[in-house]
């Protein structure tokens, strides 16, 4: 039986449908009410839950139809933050980089109602999706706390409270993304300490997504990050991070990125399957989760679907191969 091997999932975000992109623009210009926008966000969320079921993914996400970006969404809902001016991330893409202007606190849960809504639409598990304290700090300007560590630890308490609320709401999987964790490798201990605060006492499976940066600079120390599963971009890097596992064996579950999310074209099933086979050299199938490298929000709906289908088809191929191997 290979159905529980190579469970498939995604990193969190999907392409937004055109009607929602347009509506978000209208809402930003004050031409659409918050309630009207939310109605469309719920519609898009429901569409993505259905698509994920149709595609055959095992563990679902809400698709983040209600988020612009993974830091600003939280910053807009936390006290102590203000939303800063526009800065460029790449090319012609800009974002409002948040500013930590005072002591941070959480007036109320930020993601729980979206989790509950998404979970109500499916019998498959939906992940609770949070941004980790180190990334919240690193992708914001810090005007308030004397040191980066002070700010990260304050944010850790907020993320912990949100994670506990998600667990109380029924989340069996809680993902706390730390894509900035290797921004300053000398600060990895701060990120680990902060994640310890977030995940202490949780019984849900905990996951952390890490992408785009020098993973080698934090390996093997990152194995001390107190989560059950690390979720890594691999296809974009030609799977070179796997070589690190030769010297220092990988000890957690691994969600392995097998399709590059920044390319318009999708890998062939053969290419994606080969990615899984590479992962299997280091991590057993029960602990290896095929998925796309990163969130798919920069892709269109059609491209997002195509990338997920490639993950599923590649996984089927490798599951069949595993079934042929005598136990």
């Amino acid at each position: 039986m290979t159905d529980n091997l190579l469970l498939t999932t995604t990193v969190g975000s999907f392409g937004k449908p055109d009607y929602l992109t347009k509506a978000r623009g209208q809402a930003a210009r004050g031409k659409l009410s918050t309630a009207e926008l939310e109605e469309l966000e719920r519609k898009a969320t429901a569409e993505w839950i259905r698509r994920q079921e149709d595609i055959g993914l095992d563990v679902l996400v809400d698709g983040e139809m209600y988020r612009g970006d993974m830091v600003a969404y939280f910053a807009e809902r936390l006290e102590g933050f203000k939303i800063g001016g526009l800065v460029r991330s790449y090319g012609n893409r800009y974002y409002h980089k948040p500013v930590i202007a005072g002591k941070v606190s959480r007036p109320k849960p930020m993601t729980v109602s979206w989790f509950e809504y998404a979970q109500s639409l499916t019998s498959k598990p939906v992940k609770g999706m949070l941004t980790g304290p180190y990334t919240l700090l690193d992708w914001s300007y810090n005007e308030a706390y004397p040191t980066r560590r002070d700010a990260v630890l304050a944010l850790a308490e907020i993320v912990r409270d949100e994670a506990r609320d998600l667990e109380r709401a029924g989340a069996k999987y809680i993902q706390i993304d730390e894509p900035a964790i290797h921004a300053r490798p000398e600060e990895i201990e701060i990120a680990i300490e902060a994640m310890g605060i977030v995940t202490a006492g949780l019984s849900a499976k905990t996951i952390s997504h890490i992408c785009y940066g020098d993973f080698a600079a934090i390996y093997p120390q990152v194995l001390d990050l107190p989560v059950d599963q690390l979720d890594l971009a691999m296809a974009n890097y030609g799977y070179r991070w796997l070589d690190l596992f030769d010297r220092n064996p990988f000890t957690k579950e691994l969600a392995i990125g097998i399709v590059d999310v920044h390319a318009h074209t999708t890998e062939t099933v053969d290419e994606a399957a080969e990615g899984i086979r590479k992962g299997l050299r280091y991590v057993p199938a029960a602990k290896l989760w095929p998925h796309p490298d990163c969130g798919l929000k920069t892709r269109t709906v059609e491209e997002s679907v195509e990338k997920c289908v490639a993950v599923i088809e590649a996984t089927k191929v490798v599951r069949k191969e595993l079934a042929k191997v005598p136990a």
Partner: protein
Amino acid sequence: MKTTVIGAYPKIGDGPEAQELRRALHRHDRGEISDPELGKVFDDVTRTAIGEIEAAGVDVTNDGQIRWDDLLSPFARAWSGVEPGPLERFYDNNTYFRQPVIDGRIVTDGRSLVRDYTFAAGVAKTTLKAAIPGPLTFATLAARDEQYGSLEERVLAIADATAREIAGLKAAGATMIDIEDPAVAAWPKYIELAREAYRRLADPDLALTLVTYFFPADSVLESLASFPVAAVAIDVRSRETTAFDRLDAFRTQLVLLGVVDARNTRLESADEVARYAERALKLVPQERLVLATTTSLEYLPRDVARAKLTALVEGARLVTGEKVPA
């Protein structure tokens, strides 16, 4: 006390009137405007950037790198043997760049920056400097290299291409050129390789500045003092550094001290800037000290960038007892 900027200036501001370039790039992507029409917008925004830097009272400006997507891509596109490759974060910033992919012998006619420099020279009223990425940074950020057998070969090939660009800028009238090379501070183990590269760039008629940022230059400070460059830029704000106590290592070169943090919105007061300058003046004479931003102001929203430049200039004027304009 002279002041200068480093790197790129914000390409857009927050108000709709300051987002002309963003709109033009979208329209260009959709085929609604031509290359020359987009080029005119790039020129207009370059004029705005230089104007804002000069209006703040900065002594030495650059062109704001308005046409550059990132530090390396303009050259990865212009040079034969290199292509812009996969996206990656630029050091410890949530800002991306395209990693160069080297698939052949690197060749350039040395004219990649001539058009932009000539345009900016026609706009700038104050002293204008050019900028180019450093060889060690370009080489260590490459995603792949199918041409050169070692890092050393790659660095020196890039240094030769950089030298041609420097010669092209010189022919276009440039006398001051920043060589942005954060890898020199990030990778102390390659300092002698970097020195060899800079030997190939040196020109007695040009004032070259080796610009480091993001990382403390502590472990290479004394080495940098003997590089064949007229000036060295050091970021004293991004991380803890011992540089303040060791600036006397620089006996002949100018020191561009990055005192205004271009990666945090917290605004320095003029007093704070002046205090940094006074610390440095204990070890470097005023005629060899230049106050600067730590790195590109493009890591900040444009209104904050402007405010930072004002703080920089007012701080410098406090040190020299000049009247700060109301």
